[in-house]
């Protein structure tokens, strides 16, 4: 029972972190129709910038400044890269972001090398907030939850209570109409791209100390962010939230319970082979849930796409 509670908390942290990435990605997609493959790379940049800044001025300045730099960088990429490629169609656009992801990874290695960076959570938060059954929850994780929820509320406020938010909201469902209404769509695009990447940057800043700041951090998270927004439904903010939490809990729980496939197979009345080493299915028999945990989201995504191509909450066809 204690393990369940602690897993719920851990899954929440993972899910919210994922949401910070997927919310930006889904905003960008709804506005511009671009699946931004480089999104996780901006997350990585956030972590590295924050590391660099924090090594001079401490963690908190990094938290403030790094996302801004990332956001400005993102806006510039939109202005001078993506907008140019946009005229060639969607596939080149997608491929552009794909190439950008590669380039950013290489640039990060160019400047910071290939080692993991010693990016640490702030001293003031390096204590255990509370413990459940011997398992302690670091204060930093509690802080992560607060930050993510705060950002979510802020985003919600901007989207539903401000004029800019209304325009973006409208563009989620009717991108063409918004353009026809005479809004400066290129500027909105640039802004949304900037804000979206800045959100990814924030995620990087606060996740860097926990999940590690290393050149592979974007790749590790990259495709799972896509999976999240596809499951949630492209262009749906609520979908992104639900899917993020779902995946957060799914992977957390899958990793922490050693359910063996042997029990499942036996439940279905299958006989365990006498000599394991000669059975072609030996690997299935010895499989455990944590082993397949990381691929569960992909299985979920394929199932959803086959049976409900619009995702859980999506209105628009992917």
């Amino acid at each position, binding site marked *: 029972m204690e393990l369940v509670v602690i897993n719920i908390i*851990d899954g929440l942290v993972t899910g919210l972190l994922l949401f910070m990435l997927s919310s930006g990605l889904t905003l960008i997609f709804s506005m511009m129709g671009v699946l931004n493959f480089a999104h996780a790379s901006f997350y990585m940049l956030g972590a590295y910038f924050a590391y660099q800044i924090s090594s001079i001025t401490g963690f908190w300045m990094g938290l403030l400044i790094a996302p801004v730099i990332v956001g400005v960088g993102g806006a510039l990429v939109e202005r001078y890269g993506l907008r140019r490629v946009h005229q060639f169609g969607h596939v080149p656009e997608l491929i552009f972001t794909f190439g950008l992801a590669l380039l950013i990874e290489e640039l990060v290695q160019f400047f910071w090398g*290939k080692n993991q960076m010693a990016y640490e959570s702030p001293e003031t938060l390096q204590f255990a907030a509370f413990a459940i059954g011997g398992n*302690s929850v670091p204060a930093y994780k509690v802080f992560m939850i607060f930050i993510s929820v705060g950002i979510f509320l802020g985003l919600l406020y901007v989207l539903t209570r401000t004029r800019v938010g209304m325009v973006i909201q409208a563009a989620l469902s009717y991108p063409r109409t918004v353009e026809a209404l005479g809004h400066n769509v290129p500027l909105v695009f640039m802004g949304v791209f900037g804000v979206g990447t800045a959100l990814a940057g924030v995620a990087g800043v606060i996740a860097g100390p926990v999940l590690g700041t290393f050149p592979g951090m974007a790749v590790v998270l990259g495709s799972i962010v896509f999976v999240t927004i596809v499951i949630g439904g492209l262009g749906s903010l609520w979908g992104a939230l639900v899917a993020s939490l779902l995946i957060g809990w799914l992977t957390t729980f899958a990793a922490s319970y050693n359910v063996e496939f042997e029990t499942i197979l036996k439940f279905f009345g299958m006989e365990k082979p006498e000599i394991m080493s000669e059975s072609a299915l030996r690997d299935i028999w010895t499989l455990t849930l944590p082993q397949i945990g990381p691929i569960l989201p992909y299985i979920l995504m394929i199932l959803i796409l086959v049976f409900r191509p619009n995702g859980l909450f999506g209105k628009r066809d992917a």
Partner: protein
Amino acid sequence: MQRFTKIVAAGIVTTSMSVMAGFADTVRIAFVDPLSGPFATTGTNGLAEYEFAAEELVNKKGGVLGGKQFEIVAFDNKMSGKESLIQVQVAIDQGIKFIAQGNSSGIAHAITDAVNKHNRRNPDNRVLFLNYSAVDPALTNEKCNFWHFRFDANADIKMDALTDVMAQNSDLKKVYLIGQDYSFGKAVADAAVRDLTAKRPDVEIVGNELHPIGKVKDFTPYARKIIASGADAMITGNWGADMVGLGKAVIEAGFTGPIYTYYAASNGITRTFGEAGKGSIYLVAEGLQNPPVSERMSTYVDAFNAKYPDHDISQARITNVVEMLAKAIDEAGSDTDVVAIANALEGMTHDSIWGGKVFMRPQDHQAIQNVHVGVHTDEDMRHPLDNSTFGILGTNTVEMAGAESETTCKMDRP
């Protein structure tokens, strides 16, 4: 036709394939390891160690065969089996006779297989495979061959040494095993179960699991499980980001017992663990630098760190590879007759710079040497790692570990 071929080839062949082919006055060793991509850290580190060892231990002492210098030629295998085979082919084409590789047992399997096939198909152009780091026991057991030499202690030997040390800890009640889901991770887990049940039947193995390699973003759920299991020690063969992630998550979740590892040092790992890992991370390896065994060793390490401040001597056995190869070449009196060199290497006993002796066991080409267990700390640190104040301090030593270990190797000799 043949002649025409050669004439044209000489004229037109692009630089890449011919430019480096002409140095006959050096003994060249192809270093085939990742120099780019996510695993490049270990690769570049190993390259620095090779270059330094060749320079300091051979070239400055007059080389081999009365003056031939050692030259390390780097090939980037991008941590890819396919690229490794291509680079090995390029190296062989350039007339290189010695292939050194270490990162990833998977690639070592590919190379040992390829070298074996190459030597069988091209008896007049054979090469040797100097495996300095890949520790899957299979390489010196069922997959062994005459051309492969392993200079690191294999996973079984290391586990044997590690469990010898663990067995002395009477507080030990419950142990958790966790590793990466591939041949090496499985080898570690199997060895741990085997050795622990033999040496300490009273110790309960409360968990034995494998996680996907390089795919786990967050190790917290694993850490929760480990703590919930009530384990008071854990063993892992994880390396790279998987090591850092697991270690940090476990310590952060409140685990206080010892964490026994194979690769939790250098390449940023030591610096990342820092204060948090002090006294709880243990490491099993050959050639620890603390406490120093000799002035010669300390001088060597200091000189290396002065030259390569971003690198550490994380794979001490590289000096043994270089020195033993030099000896074998001198003994064989040739730097091209690899059968003679291999015969010289077989059964060779060598005084390692890291103290103790290294014996190349003829039955399976497995180096037998002292294996140490050390702890991550900043106390008594003569040679810290990662430009931090932390490093590994030896606590126990198993002399000539695994000398009696069994092997299933049936070696075909030329």
